[in-house]
C-alpha cells in the first residue's frame, strides 16, 4: 500500500489545485452574477438569471462533458485542467450567486438609505456599509458550497485528469485491491472536507468578531 502513496500524492496535488482554482472562479462569478441579479437594468438581471439557471439546471458532469467533448467540435478547445476549473467554478458560482443575492437583499433598506443620507457614493456604500455586513451571512453557505465543490472535483477523473479519484482507479486496476484503495480514498476526501469546514468556521468567527448584526453572536 505504501508503494502507492506517491501516485495518490500527485493526485492530491491535482485535486487541491482544481479546488482552489475553481473556488477563485466561483468567487468572482458568484459576486458578479449575484450583484447583477439586483441590478436596476433588466438586461443585466436577465443575463445573470440565464447564467444561474443554465448552470443550476443541468448536471455538472454533463457540463464538463459538453465543454470538453462537444465545444472542441465548434472550435473552442480547452485542456482538461482549464475545462475542469472553468466548469466546476462556473457551476459552483451559479449556486454562490444565489447566496450573494440572498445576503445582499437581507440587509435592511435603512442601511442603504443611511449611506445615501451620508452622501456616500454607491461604490462606497457597497464597500464600506453593505458588504461588511452581508459577507458574514455568506460565509456558512459558502463553506458548504466549497465542500460540494471539493466533492465535484472527483468528476474530472472522467475527463482523464489525474486527480485523486483517477489515481485511485489506476491503483485499483493495477492491484485489484478495491476495498483498501477506495477506503483510503474516502478517508482522504473526508479529511480534506473536514479541514475546509474548520477553515470556514474560523473565518466565520473572525468576521463576526465585534459585529452585532447578521453574524454569530
Amino acid at each position: 500500500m505504501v508503494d502507492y502513496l506517491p501516485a495518490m500524492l500527485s493526485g492530491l496535488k491535482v485535486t487541491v489545485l482544481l479546488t482552489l482554482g475553481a473556488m477563485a472562479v466561483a468567487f468572482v462569478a458568484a459576486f458578479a452574477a449575484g450583484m447583477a441579479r439586483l441590478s436596476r437594468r433588466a438586461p443585466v438581471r436577465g443575463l445573470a438569471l440565464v447564467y444561474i439557471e443554465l448552470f443550476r439546471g443541468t448536471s455538472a458532469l454533463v457540463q464538463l462533458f459538453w465543454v470538453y467533448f462537444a465545444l472542441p467540435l465548434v472550435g473552442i478547445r480547452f485542456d482538461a485542467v482549464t475545462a475542469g476549473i472553468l466548469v466546476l467554478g462556473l457551476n459552483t458560482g451559479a449556486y454562490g450567486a444565489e447566496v450573494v443575492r440572498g445576503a445582499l437583499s437581507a440587509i435592511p433598506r435603512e442601511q442603504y438609505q443611511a449611506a445615501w443620507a451620508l452622501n456616500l457614493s454607491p461604490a462606497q456604500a457597497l464597500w464600506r456599509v453593505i458588504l461588511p455586513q452581508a459577507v458574514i451571512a455568506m460565509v456558512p453557505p459558502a463553506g458548504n458550497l466549497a465542500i460540494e465543490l471539493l466533492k465535484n472535483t472527483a468528476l474530472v477523473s472522467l475527463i482523464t485528469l489525474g486527480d485523486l479519484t483517477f489515481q485511485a482507479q489506476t491503483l485499483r486496476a493495477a492491484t485489484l485491491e478495491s476495498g483498501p484503495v477506495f477506503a483510503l480514498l474516502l478517508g482522504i476526501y473526508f479529511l480534506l472536507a473536514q479541514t475546509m469546514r474548520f477553515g470556514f468556521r474560523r473565518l466565520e468567527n473572525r468576521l463576526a468578531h465585534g459585529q452585532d448584526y447578521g453574524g454569530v453572536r
Partner: protein
Amino acid sequence: MIFDWGFAFSILPAFGQALVVTMQATLAGMALALVLGLVWAIARRSRNRLVAFCAGFLVEFIRSTPLLVQLYFLFYVLPLWGPRITPLETGILALGLHYSAYTAEVYRAGINGVARGQWEAALALNLGRAVTWRTVILPQAVVPILPALGNYLVALFKETPLLSAITLLELLHTAKLIGADTFRYLEPLSLVGALFLILSLMASTLTRKLEKACDRFRHG
C-alpha cells in the same frame, strides 16, 4: 462543424429508453434516501449516546465524500462480499445512501421545529415513544420540510449522469455511445443538457408551487 438539427432529431428516440432508466434511478434512489434519512435523523436523537454518535458521524462522512467515489466503492467492493447486483441497483443504492445524508439534515430541522410542548403533551398522555413519533411528531415535522425535500429530489436527478461511470445506460452514457459511433458529440451532449435543463426547471416550478401550498396548509 455546426449544430445539425436533422441529426439531433434522428437520435432523439434513442434517449427514450435512457430517460426511463434515469427516472427509475431518480425515483428509487429518492425513495431510499427518504427512508434512510429518517432512520439517521431518528437515530441521532436516540437516548443511546453511541447510536446517536454513530448516526451523526455516518451522516457527516457520507456528506463529505464524493458520490462518484461512493459509487465506485459499492460497484467494485460490494460484489467481493456478497451477491452481484446490477449497475442500476448499485446506482440506486449509492444515490439513496448519499442523499440520505442530506435528507437526514432536513428531517432533523423539521423535527427540531416541532414545539417542545408536543413531546411533553405526548408524555402526559402516556403515549409510547414509537406512538409519539408516528402520530404526533412526524406528521408535524414533515409538512414544513416537503419543499426542501423536493429540492433534493431535483439535485439527485441531476447527479444521475454519474451512473454512466459504472456502465449504466442512462442519458449521458447513451449520448457518449452515440458520440463514439458517429464522431458527433455536439448534438447528443447538447440534447442531454437541454433535457436536464427542461426537466429540472419543471421540477423546480413544481417545488415552488409545493412550497406555497405548504405555507397555505400551515397558516390556513
